[in-house]
């Protein structure tokens, strides 16, 4: 279900539904005011339930305009605590060997919801900065060109910001294994695949090994 006021057609459908709903509510209220109230609550509850459960038509996949040389591979790496993982370094190494590649590493400033709401972001950003610095130094030591930045707490927003800036033609997302990954539970990888018209490589890093 799309937002009832996202387009004129949706607003018009919402109007027709409102007419039907309020005709029922008025009819029920004439029989018994409490019945009318009950019906109003039931219909409102149903509307909220339908709105929150159903997904509207997704936006079209986004094509990112090429920046730099056409044969250049521009890889955006998104990683949380797994940023220094061996599996991720292995994938980056393979990509660096295969083509003339530029890498841009994004470390979202991971934070709790409460701290995000209260704007208590400094410790999260400091931790993300340390992770990013470690990663960039490690890549530099093996001769891989890389830049990086700290991203938004929401990985999708962090990627969106980095995509505008870096214009990658490939995405690498590093997560914890299934079952321990908050990003996988939220469907971050699949959302990125749906959203962008470019290869998305998912790297699973098991830090417990």
């Amino acid at each position: 279900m799309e937002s009832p006021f996202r387009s004129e057609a949706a607003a018009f459908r919402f109007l027709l539904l409102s007419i039907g709903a309020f005709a029922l509510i008025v009819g029920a209220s004439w029989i018994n005011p409490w019945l009318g109230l009950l019906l109003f609550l039931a219909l409102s509850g149903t509307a909220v339930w339908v709105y929150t459960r159903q997904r509207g038509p997704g936006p079209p996949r986004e094509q990112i305009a090429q920046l730099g040389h056409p044969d250049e591979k521009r890889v955006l790496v998104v990683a949380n605590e797994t940023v220094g993982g061996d599996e991720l370094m292995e994938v980056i190494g393979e990509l660096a060997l295969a083509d003339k590649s530029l890498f841009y590493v994004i470390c979202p400033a991971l934070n709790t919801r409460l701290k995000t709401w209260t704007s208590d972001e400094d410790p999260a950003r400091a931790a993300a900065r340390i992770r990013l610095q470690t990663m960039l130094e490690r890549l530099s030591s093996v001769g891989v060109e890389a830049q990086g930045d700290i991203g938004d707490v929401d990985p999708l927003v962090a990627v969106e910001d980095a995509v505008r800036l870096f214009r990658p033609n490939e995405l690498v997302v590093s997560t914890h294994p299934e079952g321990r990954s908050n990003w996988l539970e939220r469907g971050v990888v699949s959302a990125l695949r749906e959203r962008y018209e470019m290869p998305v490589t998912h790297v699973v890093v098991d830090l417990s090994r």
Partner: protein
Amino acid sequence: MTSHAEAVHDHHGPPEANQSSRIDARLLGMLLFIASEAMLFGSFFTAYFFVRVVNPGAPSEWPPEPYHFPVFVAGVNTAILVTSSFTMHWALQSIKRGNRTAFLAGMVLTFMMGFVFLLTQVVEYLNVGFNTGDGAFASVFFGLTGLHGAHVFVGLTLLGMVIVRGFRGHFTPEHHLGVELPGIYWHFVDVMWIVVYSVVYLI
């Protein structure tokens, strides 16, 4: 932060503006505006229900004796306003299909019906038999219906602009956001009237 001196940004100037919401900024503006309007109406409805509940004869006696609401006239007015939403929808569908005559006819009809609604409301105010000083019920009645009337006036202004632009040859099947946004607003005004008419006049 970089591990290499080479710059990776080949273009000059600031990066392209981020549009994380992935909704057209103008449409997003209208959505936020409508959300704020819904809250404004919500506060007026809260006042209305409060006054109605504390009314000595509540809930059956509404409005308090000896006053009466012109339910039939308002019902006819409701039918006019609802019909105007249909013509608005027709107008937008017409411009999407490139039918300029139907688009202009739909817009003019919508405007005329909106104008008749507003005019009828003014006549209703003059003949309703009570005024704002006749009690809390009268204040809340004029407040709520007047707030809606103000929105109809704003909607008519927007529709008027669309009509003028339409007659000047603006809008095409590809570019008609200037019709779509007033259309969304007009439907919102209509939905609010359905609620106002139902709770104030009928229930």
